[in-house]
């Protein structure tokens, strides 16, 4: 029953998904029901499945896990008429460095997500859902089990929900410490009890996912947005954002800012204004040097590239991504060599090992960066880093290889002077 939140809310936020954060006992069903809870489900029960999907399409909601795929379109790929059972899988494997929003949605407003899952079940004739939570969120698995038990006890899950004749069972499933299991097909393999290795696509999960059956897989935040969309209409949600980038999203900001935390803003909110006015600006009045806009997998932005609206398309236009919303702000004191090393250590550790370029490439890059940071850098290393990353880009089995390559290429190209400075310094130290 936490009243104290991880960060104070900002008056500049537009709180749709996070509107119950901070309420007494916000995680309970009672609080949820007293604050518009399950109105959307009742409304959806009266709608035709195609109408539900159409409403989600109208909302221009895009996947909040990282890829930003149009959600309504993804829902429409699942063949509702298939004789196989349809499954809903919720990706709560939040492991993208910089991202910490799904944990808050589950901690402060679990029933909003549950309602979103049920509405998806209505739309796709699915009656089983699996909530895949990363193993490191041990406390949240217990927390979600309690919330789910509460829902069952009061008739909001299980058989004949609210007397509507709709059945739905929701289960939690623990991950075991693998970033790759946030990749949808690796997650499915892990859910099925196998090693978390990604699968070949096609077949796509919508057609053959969990146990070779049609499966809808979406992020926690994506499902959490559904009740508001159905309750207030897709058009209203879309209008909050920019064209084709509808609604609001939770942005996590960390690094050199005075007020790190999670804030909900409409899609298209200006990045510099966000850093200055919501995140409280950079401490000590230091200058902005670089920003990771949406999780470490995104190409990094230089300070003079940050005067942009934050939506999927605008960031894609300048060669980066809105991604998972995990923003990291770096000031002028930041050593970009260390940033590159820290990022690559993560990917080398998390590489599943299935394909050659990622398995060997991430480790090689990490070793070069480690040697460079330790003072053993050579001038050819800078070019080598870029070239090896490009040998990984687009050649790997899944996107983890790209996720490792893109930030590295951007850091080496945009911040080459950091590397040059280190080379000069290290040579001075060695020269006798």
């Amino acid at each position: 029953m936490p009243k104290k939140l991880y960060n104070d809310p900002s008056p500049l936020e537009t709180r749709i998904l996070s509107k119950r954060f901070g309420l007494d006992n916000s995680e309970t069903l009672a609080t949820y029901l007293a604050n518009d809870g399950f109105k959307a489900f009742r409304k959806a029960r009266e709608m035709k499945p195609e109408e539900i999907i159409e409403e989600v399409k109208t909302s221009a909601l895009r996947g909040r896990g990282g890829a930003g795929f149009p959600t309504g379109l993804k829902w429409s790929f699942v063949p509702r008429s298939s004789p196989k059972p349809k499954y809903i899988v919720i990706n709560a494997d939040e492991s993208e460095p910089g991202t910490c929003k799904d944990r808050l949605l589950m901690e402060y407003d679990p029933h909003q997500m549950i309602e979103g899952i049920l509405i998806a079940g209505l739309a796709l004739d699915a009656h089983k859902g699996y909530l895949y939570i990363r193993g490191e969120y041990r406390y949240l698995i217990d927390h979600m089990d309690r919330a789910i038990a509460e829902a069952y006890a009061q008739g909001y899950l299980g058989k004949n929900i609210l007397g509507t004749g709709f059945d739905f069972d929701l289960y939690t499933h623990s991950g075991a410490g693998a970033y790759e299991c946030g990749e949808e097909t690796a997650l499915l393999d892990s859910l099925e009890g196998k090693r978390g290795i990604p699968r070949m696509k096609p077949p796509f999960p919508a057609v053959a996912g969990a146990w070779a059956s049609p499966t809808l897989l979406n992020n926690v935040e994506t499902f959490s947005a559904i009740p508001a969309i159905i309750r207030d209409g897709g058009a209203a949600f879309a209008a909050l954002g920019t064209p084709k980038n509808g609604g609001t999203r939770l942005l996590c900001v960390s690094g050199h800012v005075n007020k790190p935390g999670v804030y909900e803003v409409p899609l298209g909110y200006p990045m510099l204004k966000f850093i200055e006015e919501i995140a409280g600006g950079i401490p000590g009045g230091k200058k902005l040097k670089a920003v990771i806009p949406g999780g470490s997998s995104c190409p990094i932005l230089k300070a003079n590239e940050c005067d942009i609206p934050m939506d999927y398309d605008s960031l894609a236009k300048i060669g980066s991504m809105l991604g998972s919303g995990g923003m990291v702000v770096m000031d002028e004191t930041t050593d970009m060599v260390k940033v590159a090393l820290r990022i690559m250590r993560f990917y080398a550790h998390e590489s599943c090992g299935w394909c050659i370029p990622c398995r060997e490439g991430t480790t090689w890059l990490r070793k070069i960066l480690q040697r460079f940071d330790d003072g053993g850098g050579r001038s050819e290393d800078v070019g080598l880093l870029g070239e090896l990353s490009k040998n990984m880009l687009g050649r790997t089995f899944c996107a983890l290889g790209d996720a490792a390559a893109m930030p590295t290429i951007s850091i080496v190209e945009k911040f080459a002077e950091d590397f040059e400075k280190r080379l000069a310094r290290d040579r001075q130290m060695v020269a006798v």
Partner: protein
Amino acid sequence: MAELVNLTINGQAIQAEKGALLIEVARQNGIEIPAFCYYEGLTLQAACRMCLVEVEKTPKLQVGCTLPVADGMVVHTESEIVRKARKGTLEFLLTNHPLDCPVCDKGGECELQDMVFRYGAGESRFAERKHHVDEQQWSPVVYFDAPRCILCYRCVRVCNEGMGVGALGVANRGVISEIVPNRHDYLECDECGACIDICPVGALTSGSYRYQTRPWEMTHVGTICTHCGDGCRTTLGVRDDKIVRGNNRDHSGINGEFLCIKGRYAFDFVEHPERLQSPMLRNAQGEFEPISWSKAFATIAGQFEIVKDRGGKFGIIGSNHTTNEENYFLQKFARQGLGTKNIDHHRTGDLATFFDALSGKNGALATTADLYTAKAVLVVGADLAQQHPFLSYQARANFRHHAAHIYTVTSGPVREDNQAVASVRVAKGGELGGVESLREKLKVEGDLVIVFGDSIQGDGVRKLVAFGDSLGIPVKYVCLVDYSNSRGAFDMSLIPRDGGMSWQQMLAAKDLDVLWVVGANPLKNATLASSNAFVVVQDLFMTETAKRANLVLPAASAYEKNGTVTNVCGEVQKLKQAVKVMGTKTDLEIMGSIAKEMNLNLGIWLPDKVFAEIRRTVHGYDVPLPVVDTGGAAPTVPLNGRVPALPGAIQSAGDTLFTSGSMSRYSKILNAVIESPGGLYGSKGPEVSAQSPTASGQTPGGTVQS
């Protein structure tokens, strides 16, 4: 009718079946797309990324091993961007791969070497420390060197899918991923060595072959394995007159690349120090004395003539692993030369009743290929994985690739249960009841192959064939027999027809004058009643029977001679001599020399000449010579008429995956293997009929049946 599409690869216009894999279409048209993890017959992976090619109108490079061809596709496999991608991928692979070529067994036949030569860089840019793990030995046969492993997962797949064992897995993740054995640090498996042969690099190497030679120092001889009756091709690598390895990497033969531990490794009996290398005569003191060949032949001829002149009783026991030519010559010697009908061999399956029951039917005999293509396979009273591992492999591959329906009716668990639609457990002797219970399921199958062991005998065979007839679908049969040429022994008439004595009767006859044993060990579990019999034994080792002999002749093994053998499905194939062991002669030469000594005209005793006579006179053996001569397998058909019943009991040898009659006692590798065969799927031993003890086999566990 398959739909055809038109595509272009490297400017070449190609027509292919719609949906075929690009890598296969390219290969069929002579265009090489390199790949490590792609392997025909195993599940697709797209893990190694070597097969990335350029396909016009797609932004990223495409995976050649999983991409189905489509109409209008334009592919470039040698463009600059593709070459760069291959070079980059190989460079990544070599970062942790140790520069072991000088000491690695695989050097000279290594796919990584070949690829780096063709597509890789001349120099390495890797200046960091490599990840090292020490080498491990997982079994007498399998050594694993983790740093060399390129994680193509072929070994994991061939063990799991191909062999149905699944003894290899992957542990850890990322760059420290490692192939691991199923018992923590050792393997409990079939020890077949498939993982070693399928490994593209030297990560998995053979314990018996290590450090012995370089591949270009060997000559390779493709011959037929001398152990079980499946007739697999084993390509023996011979260096300086010594067999150093066996495998079937060139995929010749009916078995593709399949081989079991016996086919791959159990050739080492050939040079066991206890090989007989001189004829020996029991002297007045009762001890064996080495004598010359001419004296041996003279002695034997002399004895034979004496017995023949006075109308004495001969008993001839032939072998189920000598060649067709030797069997044919022996029975001719017996019938024409000595005027006796007492000729037999250790019969391990009721072929007489089988062919009698099938008389009048055409196309009722299944070949090993039929096991791979049939819609349904029924296994009755046999543990194929133990005694006919290639047939087991075919059935399993049929299930994997064609979703064939497998049925098992056995008294204990068998490996095929894992793929079976229905498994019926029966008490030994109750197999026919179990088969009947499957009638409703079987009669709706497209076609069926029935494989049965020696628990179906005599009338049981007739009932089984009648059952097959009553299903109303096409049915083919395999009557299982053991050892490399049991079928040949029967076809060449090493059988007591027309009132001759069975081998059991010969041993029991107190008035037997001569017992001539060629490549058999009947006195292993039985005694010879006639104390005055003159016993001549031709064999490789001093077996129990040889110990009782008056005269022992050192014979050549199957790997030391030419000739033909007929496998359990009736396919005849050629042996090819790999080595020669000093002091031995082939059985054919021995018999021919004795005949010459006796002035008998039985024809020239050269294998080719005898085979020519077999083709002329033995029904079903008029096989096309080019097929056999070029290393093919030619199906034979039995006499299409009534076959009278034969006396004498029939019993399977009861061998396991790690035993092979008396010969296997002399194979170091078979003795070194510690696993219990079949233990992985709960089998307590092979399915053997409840009859009198085996003549040359042992029960698993080493105890001899009394």
